[in-house]
């Protein structure tokens, strides 16, 4: 062994000992890449080589630090990601079960808007800290006249007993927010500990150490303890935001904080919506509102849109963001707003093939399904996503997409699509609309579907028959109509699909094999089955 190396520096920049790597591998990584005898020689070398000893110690320390600074997600987040992953429809696996196809080949997300959101978090933390300073100064003025109380303390922050606060002037009673008579009884349930945040907790917030508060807010720790403390802070900020003298600074902080922690805010019951909107209106936060990410950003965009007069600044800012690299929440907000913003969002997700954003747009559009024109928007989303799932089966892809986008909707969207259907010029638009109407199974669409069934295009007639077949028997009078001369077989197939009582006699009169009879009796056909059944029923009159 050559121990004559110069080991005068311990920071890794000096000459290295030739055995460093092997010793670190052996002692830190358990990598014995040589014979046992060689390992013993290395260990023997270590005893006399400060350089190697330093390298081993440093490697251990570095590993420990790296492990210590590794961030783990909260269990709830893990469950959310797992649920979202399997919610993504996939192509059938091993032929065992047919899953809807995935709409976008490359689900990629993570726009820079998220970064801005994070900036907003820091901004919120700074604002909160500053508000706290302001509160401390405010409290100091008042402390001179206070009489110390016996047990006043912040419930969970662990502060020492503080003076009993005097009622604050110039602020509405907490009861006004909570709708209860006694301000001290106003409380927010704490799901983590079963406790409550009371109005008293809010009032003594002024005794918080601003630096501590700042650090805690910046940490975004998911621990229950910290979450509870933040809950107190959020509640207090909501209160502060309502004081006239706090405007607009505290209001801005409040809105950002509210948006920052949706689960936290969710624990604040009825406070969140009116306070957030009020804060927005008072602080003119329209250009900041889009910093906010995820569900919160989307929700606040909804509130703003619903309450704040169709804000032009918001739309302008959104348009700017959509021209760049919008985040998922930004495209979702755009989808919620509709109009030109939706068009931009759609172009963005289509051009970039962003699966996650596509889902965000779909989700936001679905949530706003009662706002009108959503049927057209959802139709466009399906059309944009078609052919991108790599399944190689356009029909299955289309069916899966329609189910994914339209399932569970109905009502206004169904009527909108039904109204729109006759004027749709492209075949793929009409096909998707028919599939969607089939998903809705709304008797109110029966007339339009019947006209398509009798129309000139066979493929669309079959889809219309399928859609009619999904509507519950006896809800639309289809069975009472005089049998049409044109496409009578498809009309019958629709009724058989519904298992309308009228059809039992037809089935009994037919010369069917066992599986054919079983198929007809089961009903609830797919579009393909509907065509097959129609052909079977074609021989009905001849047999009779």
């Amino acid at each position, binding site marked *: 062994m050559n121990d004559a190396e110069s080991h005068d520096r311990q*920071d*890794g*920049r000096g000459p290295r000992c030739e055995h460093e*790597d092997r010793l*670190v*591998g052996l002692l830190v*990584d*358990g*990598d014995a890449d040589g014979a046992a005898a060689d390992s013993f020689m290395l260990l023997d070398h270590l005893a006399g080589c400060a350089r190697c000893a330093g390298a081993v110690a*440093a*490697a251990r*320390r*570095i*590993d420990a*630090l*790296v*492990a*210590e*600074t*590794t*961030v*783990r*997600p909260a269990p709830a987040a*893990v469950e959310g*990601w*797992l649920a*979202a*992953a*399997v919610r*993504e429809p*996939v*192509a059938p*696996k*091993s032929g*065992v*079960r047919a899953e809807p196809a995935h709409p976008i080949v490359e*689900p*990629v*997300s*993570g*726009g*820079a*808007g*998220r*970064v*801005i959101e*994070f*900036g907003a978090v820091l901004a919120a933390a700074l604002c909160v800290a500053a508000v706290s300073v302001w509160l401390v100064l405010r409290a100091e003025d008042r402390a001179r006249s206070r009489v110390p109380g016996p047990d006043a303390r912040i419930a969970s922050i662990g502060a020492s007993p503080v003076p009993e606060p005097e009622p604050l002037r110039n602020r509405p009673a907490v009861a006004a927010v909570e709708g209860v008579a006694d301000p001290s009884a106003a409380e927010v349930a704490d799901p983590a500990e079963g406790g409550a945040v009371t109005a008293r907790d809010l009032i003594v917030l002024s005794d918080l150490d601003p630096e501590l508060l700042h*650090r*805690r807010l910046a*940490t*975004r*720790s*998911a*621990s229950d303890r910290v979450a509870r403390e933040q809950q107190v802070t959020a509640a207090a900020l909501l209160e502060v935001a309502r004081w006239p003298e706090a405007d607009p600074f505290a209001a801005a902080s409040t809105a950002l904080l509210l948006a920052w922690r949706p689960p936290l805010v969710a624990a604040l019951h009825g406070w969140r919506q009116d306070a957030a909107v009020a804060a927005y209106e008072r602080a003119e936060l329209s250009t900041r509102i889009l910093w906010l*990410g995820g569900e919160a950003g989307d929700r606040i965009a909804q509130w703003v849109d619903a309450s704040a007069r169709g804000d032009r600044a918001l739309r302008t800012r959104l348009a700017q963001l959509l021209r*760049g*690299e919008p985040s998922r929440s930004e495209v979702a907000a755009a989808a919620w707003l509709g109009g030109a913003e939706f068009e931009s969002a759609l172009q963005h997700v289509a051009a970039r093939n962003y*699966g*996650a954003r596509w889902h965000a747009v779909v989700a936001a559009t679905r949530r706003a399904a009662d706002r009108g024109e959503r049927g057209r928007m959802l139709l466009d989303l399906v059309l944009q996503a078609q052919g991108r799932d790599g399944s190689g089966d356009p029909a299955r892809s289309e069916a899966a997409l329609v189910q994914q986008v339209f399932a569970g909707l109905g009502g206004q969207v169904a009527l909108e699509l039904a109204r729109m259907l006759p004027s749709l010029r492209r075949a793929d638009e009409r096909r998707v609309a028919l599939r969607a109407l089939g998903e809705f199974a709304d008797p109110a669409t029966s007339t339009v579907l019947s006209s398509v069934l009798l129309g000139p295009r066979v493929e669309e007639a079959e889809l219309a028959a399928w859609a009619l077949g999904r509507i519950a028997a006896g809800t639309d009078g289809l069975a009472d109509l005089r049998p049409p001369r044109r496409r009578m077989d498809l009309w019958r197939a629709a009724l058989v699909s519904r298992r309308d009582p009228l059809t039992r006699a037809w089935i009994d009169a037919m010369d069917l094999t066992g599986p054919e009879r079983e198929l007809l009796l089961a009903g609830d056909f797919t579009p393909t089955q509907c065509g097959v059944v129609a052909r079977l029923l074609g021989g009905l009159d001849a047999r009779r």
Partner: protein
Amino acid sequence: MVPRVQADTPDSEAERLEALLARARAGEAAAFQTLVRPQVGALFGLAQRLAGGRREQAEEAVQDALVRAWRGIEGLEAAGALRTWLFRIVVRCSLDERRRRRAAGARSAGVEATEVPAGLASDPSAGMEARELRDRLAEAMERLPERQRMALHLRASEGLGYEAIGAALECSTGAARMLVLEARRRVRERLGSHLEER
């Protein structure tokens, strides 16, 4: 007599995982979730490291990786290879994401914030030295080439051996070894005297 509950042996655990994998391959979402759930924390840790501490970016990468894993579960041959397979997907997703963000320009340059590990920052008593060490470590890790950073993280945080690191990073065992050692060397250079135990 009270019946004895037989503890899971390695074999029975392996069989359980293989059975879960078979069910996941058949399209059973719950089996996929059960199989993958224990690994998600580690996936996030790696993604977070690759994202330079940017939590949102890491979340996106993990979400995308899980979607890809679910869609590609048929490509996983054995449950024993699950962990490195998932790491490989996260690495790809993270690098894709980074490339895309670079290509997209720096619309939000200057406003990204680094996630502060809860263990360090939520402790009010954390001193200046600890914070400085944390900051220097974050900086040193950030400056490492991506593959070195991943290799060191997988070794130090996840306890992977060189062979598994090689599998995750799609390189040889020897190359993985060199990545880990070189990463440590560079971090040590940057941390200097701050590395000494106090």
